[in-house]
């Protein structure tokens, strides 16, 4: 079997190379999002943020990584050792695997699955196991309670998330993220965020809750649960949890940008207003949208206080779920009307 153009080996090699490129880029982004988050929150509190390591503290992520790698690896005595070691990997794997179905521009996509949105939802539901098992296997009551809380949070926010995505799927008539972007570019307003404003807001709130970010960062409620399911973790394993959180932040931003803001395409009215925008490369357009949402994630964290747990759950079941259903019906009416 030589390296001809259509052999299996060649195909595997190309796929492997693509995966490495995407993984490298996303890991670099995740590392520097930590830096940017500290910097931006610092500026919002009239501080400077990290400044010591390198010029303007640019090497801070590297220093953090080295610190995490060389810390002592602690296994609590009462923990289930195997599960304790597997749990962060489960969470991280489920976060990273999402990248395989996300298109970064019209031609670059690792796996062209025609059910991209469902794959994302399935992986999100598998990631909950990482949280629960981390909480359970630590052998500490803070971890168990924190793990169950976060799992309940992620589970109950998955439903409005999926239902608001159902509106997009209904409008685009496809489960594939690429098709959704293309259908969106040809729709009346160019972006789905305008006709499906309700779904957009619901999705945005659910994205904050799904990634366990502020104002829904119950795991980090120190006064109640110490650090939730990561209480007993230290060193590199804790780093894996944080990596998973930042990668899932990127996944959620990518999903919002692709499903609601037109992905790499710009709406026709924007191009009519500013014709020079047409010259932007598609990946850059997508990246700008994603960076905006990452900034929003950080901005919201710097601004809002944390929700109480019962408020969190009642918000999901009493407000967001009905809203997403109303949004779904509204999209159905629009579709019936031929829009």
């Amino acid at each position, binding site marked *: 079997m030589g390296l001809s153009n259509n052999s299996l080996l060649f195909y595997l090699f190309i796929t492997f190379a693509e995966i490495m490129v995407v993984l490298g880029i996303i890991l670099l982004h995740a590392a520097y999002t930590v830096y940017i988050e500290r910097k931006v929150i610092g500026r919002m509190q009239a501080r400077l943020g990290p400044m010591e390591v390198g010029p303007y503290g640019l090497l801070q992520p590297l220093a953090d990584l080295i610190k995490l790698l060389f810390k002592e690896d602690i296994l609590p005595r009462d923990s289930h050792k195997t599960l304790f070691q597997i749990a962060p990997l489960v969470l991280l794997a489920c976060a990273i695997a999402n990248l395989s179905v996300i298109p970064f521009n019209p031609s670059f996509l690792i796996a062209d699955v025609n059910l991209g949105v469902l*794959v994302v*939802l399935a992986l999100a*539901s598998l990631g909950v196991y990482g949280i629960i098992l981390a909480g359970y296997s630590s052998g500490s009551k803070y971890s168990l309670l924190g793990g*169950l809380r976060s*799992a309940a949070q992620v589970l109950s926010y998955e439903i409005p998330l999926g239902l608001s995505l159902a509106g997009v799927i209904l409008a685009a008539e496809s489960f594939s993220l690429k098709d959704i972007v293309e259908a969106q570019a040809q729709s009346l307003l160019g972006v789905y965020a305008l006709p499906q404003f309700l779904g957009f807001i619901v999705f945005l709130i659910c994205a904050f809750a799904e990634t366990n970010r502020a104002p829904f960062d119950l795991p980090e409620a120190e006064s109640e649960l110490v650090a939730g399911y990561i209480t007993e973790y230290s060193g590199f394993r804790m780093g894996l949890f944080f990596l998973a959180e930042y990668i899932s932040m990127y996944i959620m931003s990518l999903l919002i940008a692709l499903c609601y803001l037109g992905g790499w395409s710009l709406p026709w009215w924007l191009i009519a207003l500013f014709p020079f925008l047409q010259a932007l490369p598609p990946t850059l357009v997508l990246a700008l949208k994603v960076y905006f949402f990452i900034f929003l994630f950080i901005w919201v964290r710097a601004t809002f206080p944390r929700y109480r747990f019962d408020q969190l759950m009642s918000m999901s079941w009493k407000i967001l779920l009905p809203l997403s259903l109303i949004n779904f019906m509204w999209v159905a009416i629009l579709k019936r009307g031929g829009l």
Partner: protein
Amino acid sequence: MVERGLLLFVLTFFVLFLFFLTFIFRQILYQFLTILLIMVLLGIYYLFLNAEFIAAIQVIVYAGAILIMFLFTIFLFPEEELKYSRDILKTHYSSFLPLGFFLALFLFSLFKAIPKSYKEQNFYFDLKILSKILFNDYWITIYILAFLLSLPMIALYIFFKREERSGSN
């Protein structure tokens, strides 16, 4: 074809391995984890049957909803209840015999039922075809299904109402 056979061979091997692990483990939590893996692997089986939608739904519903519900229930019980006090498998090996016989009979009848020469239909499982059949020919089933799905919610409501009443008395 060779790749498909190889992958399915490995998959079936995995499922059999997990099958034995499920019997060996004596804690419900570990048994649960092997069963979870089996459910996720079943999703891959559905992919091989050209049913991507069922594969995704299998993972979302079984792994994401049903088994998580089970995991939450596991945490409700004390740890002594989650181990087997008396394992029949350990004391009565003979109890495997009727079950083994049943398995053999089942497999035999299955392979007997396979037609000698079938033409493989490269039929693609399209969602649009499915929804057309589902909502035009089988709409009564859909309504019954909707009713059935609302049953657990009603049951939960009654359950918690009774809890409240007994709690107040």
